[in-house]
């Protein structure tokens, strides 16, 4: 399952980002940053570099061990895949992080689709796993924080979401049915990083939105919109699960008409 590997999001995003912030502000920020951390950082530079590589190779080994223990039965000793599971060569850190941090992997008893569960691994173990998988072959990396702030253009994000995602996930991200018991999950309260990785790697029945389909900035916009929905309750009151006319209709029949019929019974009972 070789999902199309994308352009490095970092370089592409930087180019886009420039027009969005006043250059002066960036310079000021960089200056402040340099003044505050420069001195301290200089002291540790050499040792930090050395320990980064050491740490990363330690991570890879740890990841390798975890992989052999938890994943290799299905995905093969060398990530080559088996009859039951696809190859992980080139899926990239993003895919592993998405699958493992949402608890989808290691896969559980087979259902129509792998579902979210509480993750079995700590953040550090997850990191070890994706570092290990990414060390074998390049693929989409962990998304850069600059796209995950949730403070970009919500209106553009909403537009993109309606055109690209709503047919499966519903306009309000309430989720929806796919064929044969599969479904697109609700997107309320999903972490920004997970959203980014989902778009980038297209888990299971979700299509891949590589950086040509949706640029990293556009992904950031989509995230911003979903975060807007999370943080702003419906202006009209309780949203009844955002399921649209079905929940409205049910609510009307059960609560609305139910109350009124109750009142009629009460009114006519008093008349006797």
């Amino acid at each position, binding site marked *: 399952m070789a999902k199309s590997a994308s352009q490095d999001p970092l370089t592409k995003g930087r180019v886009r980002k420039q027009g969005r912030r006043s250059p002066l502000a960036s310079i000021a920020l960089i200056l402040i940053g340099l003044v505050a951390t420069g001195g301290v950082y200089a002291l540790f530079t050499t040792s930090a570099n050395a320990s980064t590589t050491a740490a990363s190779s330690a991570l890879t080994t740890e990841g390798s061990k975890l992989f052999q223990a938890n994943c290799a039965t299905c995905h093969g000793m060398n990530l080559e895949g088996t009859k039951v599971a696809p190859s992980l060569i080139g899926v990239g850190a993003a895919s592993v992080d998405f699958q493992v941090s949402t608890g989808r992997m290691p896969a559980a008893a087979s259902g*129509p689709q792998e579902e979210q569960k509480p993750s079995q691994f700590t953040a550090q173990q997850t990191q070890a796993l994706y570092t290990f998988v990414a060390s074998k072959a390049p693929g989409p990396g962990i998304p850069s924080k600059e796209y995950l702030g949730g403070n970009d253009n*919500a*209106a553009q*994000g*909403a*537009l993109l979401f*309606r*055109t690209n995602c*709503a*047919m*499966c*996930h*519903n*306009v*309000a991200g*309430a*989720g*929806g*049915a*796919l*064929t*044969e*018991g599969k*479904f*697109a999950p609700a997107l309320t309260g999903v972490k920004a990083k997970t959203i980014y990785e989902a778009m980038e790697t297209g888990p299971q029945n979700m299509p891949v939105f590589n950086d040509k389909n949706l640029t990293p900035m556009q992904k950031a916009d989509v995230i911003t*919109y979903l975060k*807007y*929905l999370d943080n702003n309750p*419906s*202006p*009209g*009151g*309780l*949203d*009844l699960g*955002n*399921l*649209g*006319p*079905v929940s*409205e*209709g*049910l*609510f*009307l*029949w059960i*609560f*609305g*008409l139910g*109350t*009124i*019929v109750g*009142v*009629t019974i009460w*009114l*006519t*009972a*008093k*008349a*006797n």
Partner: protein
Amino acid sequence: MTTTTDTSAGVGAPEAPRSTALAKRPSVTASAANYIDERTSISGLVKELGRKIFPDHWSFMLGEVALYSFIVILLTGTFLTFFFQASQTPVVYDGTYLPLKGINMSAAMNSTLHISFDIRGGLLMRQVHHWAALLFVASIGLHMLRIFFTGAFRKPRELNWMIGFILFILAMAEGFTGYSLPDDLLSGNGLRIIDGLIKGLPIVGTWISYLLFGGEFPGTEIVGRLYTLHILLLPAILVAALGVHLVLLVINKHTQFAGPGKTNDNVVGVPIMPVFAAKAGGFFFIVFGVIMLMASLFTINPIWTYGPYDPSPISAGTQPDWYIGFADGALRLVPSDWGFMIGDYTFSLNIVAPVLVLGLFIVAVAAYPFIEGWITGDKREHHIADRPRNAPTRTAIGAAGVTFYAVLWAAASSDLIATHFLLSIEGVIRTLQITLILGPIVAYQITKRVCLALMKKDREIALHGFESGRIVRLPGGEYIEVHEQLSDYERWRLVSFQDYKPLMIRPNAQGRISTLERARGAMSSWFFEDRISPVTNTELEQAHGAGHGAVETGSADGHEIGTGH
């Protein structure tokens, strides 16, 4: 609480003493009333209306609920017209709702968002309007069910059933046109389905679609046209039909359930003036209050999340408002491979079949009183409402119809059923397809059996009283259970219904029996073959005279019951 009897012969009511008192020292109101009366002779009408009797069963108030929610709709709808712009001119949104800022949309959508976010109370008014619309159609539906199951549509009220039915259709049309006005994604998708539905009709479909939308869908005309329908044409017809409906109601008077003193020739209940009017006024505010409560606490039709209409996107979980759901469900349930080829032409039945089935269903509902009247050959006037059990076949037909409708309705939410109960959508659809056919049959059988059983029970109770649970040991050592007799009042309710027999088919003047008559005879015996006759006076006297009504010995003394089998 005093109840009054209104004789249909229209005997003048005795002059109320209070009005004479008023006449002596005319108050301001009295002289004003007098002023108006001298110029309009309205007092006759007021008297008639004021003495209109309203029976006191809760189900008789459902029509009122519909009326009151319609009033709420009119009030809020008028408010909305002040600010709504029925135009599809493209504009760029620049209102307060952040996730739509700078987005292209039609003026209609823009103005609806403006109502929602920038007009004081606008969002509340929209939500009141929409919740009231849902309640309006729902209460009409329930009201129709009440009429159906109590047989209140029989002569002389068949016409009013037709008018009520037209009101129901108009309400759905009002709802659909209103739902399409804001030009948001969901309503646009709804219109697209209608467009597809029209285009699916053979030969004429495409022409009608172009005519309706003023060109290729979606065009730039449709919102304006729907607006004319929604606020002018349909409400005008609706109000007129409603007027006729209410006038006929006054002329025909209410039906009532059988009870002591309640006969086919009177109406027992509370006169409208003054107590009932006060209650009704109060009830209006209760209905208004419930709608307000829903509208202020619960979002409805959040067009801001749906976004403006654009033919390319579509959302998962796209559904129409509940009252159009049955049509959506029919489209979802029709097998996708229905169709055939003649030469080079494909004839798809995917649209035609559901449209025909629904059309037939709707016509059957509209014509039911006439169909039943023809089958039973019953030309009598009926003013006593049937208890549903006493008309087993009708009640069973009704249950089958409700099941059919409910399955279609459920099918409109097949995707949500699938995700919420962790089922596959194919499985849900398949199950519903089967239920659509078997469900009504099963519902019919069960309902009929239950009705007959209940009638049997009523008959037993009327004849022998009910089991008191008190066991008495007779001097001889024998144990018996004491049966408590009903009071005459209670028994009346159980025994006063009319007996029917299958029609006797007689040859016509030429001495022949036409096929139509034969069919009628067959239908009539289907309608009445299983029945339980009401207890007659003789039977009652026998049962009680013989003295065994008070106590029943252990052995089951089965009474012959007039079932057809």
